[in-house]
């Protein structure tokens, strides 16, 4: 494999649980707990899991909207020429440069835009923050972006306010804003989960098309495995702050090895009444990882757990062949 665009190493985020204003926190939620993965230039990685598994926190750390407690976020160039640089703790002018290369698309197109700014102001803001181009050049660039995201003719959209746009159109504006600086890496946090089915596919297709044209890599955060399958080359499954399985999309979906991935997959509703789903039951619902013990995170819900899972630490991701990594002590036994 050539040099990755993004390399995340032992990334961790702990949130203190408050015990009162003047007391030192002694409890921590382990929202993201020492995860590592790589994303190649132009590749999109899907990060899937239930609410509270840490997928959004991971995304926010990668765009530096949240600071990592520990670990590294190494960022390379899209053409793989330069060395990887740790961006987990940069600030000042380095941060400005960082924002040119890494952008984000948020879940809720109704909340992620300033209602008092026109479409032009919204999309041109990254350019003015970065001091790129004259006003006229910016106008041209914004018009070109609007055309690219399917809002044409651009003149009819440039001076509209967000409330004059539908949800799908707003999300197109959000995509234009994220791509206007020509970044090499975009974190997309559930960008289609608020949209209706008929709009959803056109937005996903647009993101796939632009990924190709701009050679951008996505970290695509979603709870929906079917969406991840449509969008992503590889999938990482997260559970309570840990990545429990990662690999090629079709390999993960066709040959899930971790008990959690299998349960998740069997719970996804299938739009085909004649399809008989495998019955994989796991226990209860997701909890919070407050000061979790070192053992396997999934043990409380795992129907297969054995003595080894109680005594050993949380298992590391192990290569099961074909670039398919699983973190489970029992994979050979439960497969």
């Amino acid at each position, binding site marked *: 494999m050539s040099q990755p665009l993004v390399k995340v190493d032992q990334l961790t985020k702990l949130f203190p649980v408050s015990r009162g204003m003047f007391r030192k926190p002694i409890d921590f939620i382990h929202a993201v707990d020492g995860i590592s993965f790589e994303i190649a230039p132009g590749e999109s990685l899907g990060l899937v899991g*239930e609410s509270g598994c840490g997928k959004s926190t991971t995304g926010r750390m990668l765009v530096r909207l949240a600071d990592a407690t520990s670990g590294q976020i190494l960022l390379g160039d899209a053409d793989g020429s330069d060395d990887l640089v740790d961006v987990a703790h940069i600030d000042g002018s380095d941060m400005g440069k960082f924002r040119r290369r890494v952008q984000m698309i948020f879940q809720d197109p109704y909340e992620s835009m300033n209602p008092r700014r026109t479409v032009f102001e919204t999309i041109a803001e990254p350019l003015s923050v970065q001091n790129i181009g004259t006003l006229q050049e910016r106008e041209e660039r914004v018009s070109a972006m609007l055309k690219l995201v399917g809002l044409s003719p651009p003149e009819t959209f440039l001076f509209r306010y967000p409330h004059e746009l539908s949800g799908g159109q707003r999300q197109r504006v959000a995509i234009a804003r994220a791509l206007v600086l020509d970044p090499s890496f975009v974190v997309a946090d559930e960008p289609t989960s608020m949209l209706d089915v008929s709009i959803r596919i056109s937005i996903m297709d647009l993101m796939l098309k632009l990924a190709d044209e701009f050679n951008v890599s996505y970290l695509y955060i979603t709870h929906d495995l079917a969406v991840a399958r449509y969008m992503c080359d590889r999938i990482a499954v997260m559970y309570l702050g840990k990545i429990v399985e990662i690999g090629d999309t079709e390999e993960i979906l066709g040959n899930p090895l971790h008990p959690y991935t299998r349960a998740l997959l069997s719970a996804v509703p299938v739009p085909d009444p*004649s399809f008989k789903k495998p019955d994989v039951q796991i226990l209860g619902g997701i909890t919070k990882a407050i000061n979790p013990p070192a053992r396997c995170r999934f043990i409380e819900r795992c129907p297969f757990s054995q003595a080894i899972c109680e005594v050993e630490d949380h298992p590391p991701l192990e290569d099961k062949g074909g670039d398919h990594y699983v973190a489970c002590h029992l994979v050979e036994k439960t497969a």
Partner: protein
Amino acid sequence: MSRPLLEVDHLVMNYKTEKGDVSAVEDVTFTLHSGESLGLVGESGCGKTSIAMSLLRLVAENAVFKSGEIRLEGTNLLALSEEEMRQRRWNDISMVFQGAMNAWNPVYRVGDQIREAMDLHFRPRLSTAESNDRIDRLFNLVGLNPAMADRYPHEFSGGMRQRAIIAMALSCDPKLIIADEPTTALDVIVQDQILQELKKIQAELGMSIIYISHDIAVIAEVTDTIGVMYAGKLVEIGPTSEVFARPRHPYTFLLLSSTPSVTGPRRKLAPLEGEPPNLLDPPPACRFHPRCPWATDRCRTEEPKAEDIGGGHLVACWNWQEVPEIGAMIK
């Protein structure tokens, strides 16, 4: 065949607004027999929740029933007085709303809130011992520990709260439950658990359920019959397996083609072009024609009526025979 439990007969319902009448439910007809489940699917604003609210007569103040009837065991609900309707709610028809799990009163115990519903609606009234016994049985039925009835809502997880809502909906032995997006706010594993639970309870108790969802995959899993709504109209209805295997309305076809799945071959999805119409001024004749790839002149001038194409499969489209087979794409 015996008389259906529920007959919705040419129902037309509008919302009066300052800008004019919004045609939310337009000439919708369907029936539901005892013990059956029906799914209504469609995008936001297609009128599926308006139908649910109409069945309960819990519509907004500006809603006007223009024509049509909703008959429950032969009685037209729209002709009942407010008090008569109140007695029907919960006893005959109960509901599980979207986000109902967040509607618990935080300062009362969950069991007491269910008891309140039974005190108001269950006739003859139950003694405390009887209602306690009933709450125990309901909690067991929905997979909750009966001891939880003495707890407060914040001590429940989201999935548990939704289970308790289902217990409450079952508390007066309704004949019909309306479940409007019952699992939309839940994680996929909890969603699956609750849907399986509802299916099991339905088989055990034999009531009817109307599921309302934007997610056609959820409807595929839990219903016998599926009705597809577009812009206030029911455009296709039929046995779920039949409609999924052979969707005949272009909208159903495109909806299914644009739903990603984790099973089957990885395929390109076909987007539905355009956006749903503004119901203040819906397109004339067939409301889907501006977005329909198979539309002809007739679709723009003459409204298609629901046509039975065999086996209880009804389609409101002039050109249903032109719609390609989906079987090869889905399987």
